[in-house]
């Protein structure tokens, strides 16, 4: 559903400047083209939505950004650097996290542990102190726990802290998932890229919207502009091509 990137202070990119740009990306599975020649950019601090009907290529697009898929053509520039092949955990460590269209929480773990997992990248104490759970390991654990508790307060999920998320209703799971994504970056003024089917939700929230259909970009702009676009209306109403 969303995509969180780091704040300006750490990247040297000012608010409003381009943080990530997708240039002429195409992705094929065998003979099937999932994305063809799509370009757009995401600016620092904005809420950017990627929408489109089922099978439009939204998830594939995100998977490219995340490093799950390698596009056959085109490239992705992140923080001004053209990215070579990247593994998902590398993408994560450069500040890209995501949630999934379907809930992808760690079902056997508690809410707290799920969100704490989001902090993994920022935790560095090694095996030795981890084994002892004292000294640096404990200090680190407490420091991150504090930040996670802030997120928990922000999302108002204090009551379900120690409940395995598999037992929570869908709505709460979504909230935990948002919490986990926030934990990766723990700043609330971040760039968020949303993917949604639901137009209504998106239009209220986002600053700018990209619309995909059959793997192609059919519109890009502010919600008002996109809403008025004939191609978008056709795509959503299912007009035959």
């Amino acid at each position, binding site marked *: 559903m969303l995509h969180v990137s780091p704040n300006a202070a750490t990247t040297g990119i000012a608010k409003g400047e381009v943080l990530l740009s997708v240039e002429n990306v195409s992705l094929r599975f065998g003979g099937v083209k999932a994305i063809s020649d799509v370009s757009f950019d995401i600016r620092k601090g904005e809420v950017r939505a990627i929408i489109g009907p089922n099978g439009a290529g939204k998830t594939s697009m995100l998977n490219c950004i*995340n490093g*799950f898929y390698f596009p056959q053509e085109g490239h992705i520039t992140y923080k001004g650097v053209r990215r070579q092949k990247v*593994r*998902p*955990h590398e*993408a*994560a*460590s450069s500040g890209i*996290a*995501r949630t*999934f269209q379907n809930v*992808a*929480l*760690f*079902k*056997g*773990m508690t809410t707290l*542990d799920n969100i*704490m*997992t*989001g902090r*993994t*990248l920022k*935790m560095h*104490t090694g*095996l030795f102190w*981890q*084994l*002892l*759970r004292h000294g640096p*390991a*404990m200090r*680190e*654990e*407490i420091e991150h*726990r*504090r930040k996670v*508790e802030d997120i928990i307060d922000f999302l108002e999920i204090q009551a379900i802290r120690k409940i395995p998320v598999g037992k929570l209703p869908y709505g709460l799971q979504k909230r935990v998932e948002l919490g*986990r994504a926030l934990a*990766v970056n723990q700043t609330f003024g971040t760039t968020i890229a949303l993917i949604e089917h639901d137009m209504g939700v998106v239009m209220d929230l986002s600053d700018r919207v990209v619309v995909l259909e059959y793997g192609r970009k059919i519109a890009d702009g502010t919600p008002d502009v996109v809403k008025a676009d004939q191609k978008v209306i056709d795509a959503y109403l299912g007009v035959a091509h």
Partner: protein
Amino acid sequence: MFYRETGQFKTNYADDMAIFPIRQDRIGIAIIIAIALILPFMVSDFVLKTILLPFLALSVAVIGLNILTGYTGLISLGSAGFMGVGAYACYKLTTLFPEVNIIIWIFASGFFAAAVGVFFGLPSLRIKGLYLAVATLAAQFFLQWAFVRIPWLFNYNPSGAIEVPLRTLFGMPITGPTAELEVKYLICLGFVIGMTWLASNLVHGRIGRSWMAVRDMDIAAELMGIKLLNAKLMAFAVSSFFCGVSGALFVFLYLGGAEAGTEFAIRLSFLILFAVIIGGTGSMIGSFFGTAFIVALPTILKFGAPAIGIAITGATAEKIVLMIIGALTIYLLIVEPHGLARLWQIMKQKLRVWPFPY
């Protein structure tokens, strides 16, 4: 009535993150350890030797496999092989450097098992689930073969066996035939408490969380920045470390010498996996329940039935024990797929509201 957390408020995160946040649990653990400390002086040698010592020695391996299977979601059928690595490593170390205390070597033997474990854990990057389980059989059979084939491992002993030499601590024999059973028990207990403490520290911290994340959804885990390679190999290393220490304890403090090559056979691997599942995957306390189930149940059935007047011969008992273990396993899985640990939890839950359930 007595088992309540009401009124126990955490004023800092350290308290809340303690492994036993409820005071009654901490008291319970203290009581269990106290009982464990006096137990060897209360029971007969028979119980000490045939139930308690193998229970302690094997429980370390069961915790080890639980780290791999229960916490990280990787099934292994090679635990007995890794135990064997620990046993032989300990034997080689103590015969090469007899002046170093055996307790240090028992612990150190875990490192050798860990190294071997990492090597055989490499396929886990490409394969998962039951495929991986079958792949670990390669480790089991290869190691078992190596134990027999490499005479250096047993110091070219013509009988091919490991003979546990006499080793002392403060002048008191702790391994070898003259060591008192009670002493061996207490050493084992020390290892079990220490290793359990380390394991639960680990699973409650960053590394434990990354294991569970890999288990629950490896793709999402990778997106959180967890390196699957590191997490899985770390799980194999830690798990095999525990198995290795367990193997050293098994031979040095329990069996006291045996044809170790045949001792660490596939059957033992299965028993350990059995204990993990029956006890409850992803549960420390479950590991102990599971071990008790596989160690104590057969012995109690076999020797207990005649003791209370049910006349069955040894051979029949052995067959019936197999049937009962099989049937009980299926029954338990049906009643509570999450194992004995879950039943224990439910019991505690009931206790929490007792005596006013509504």
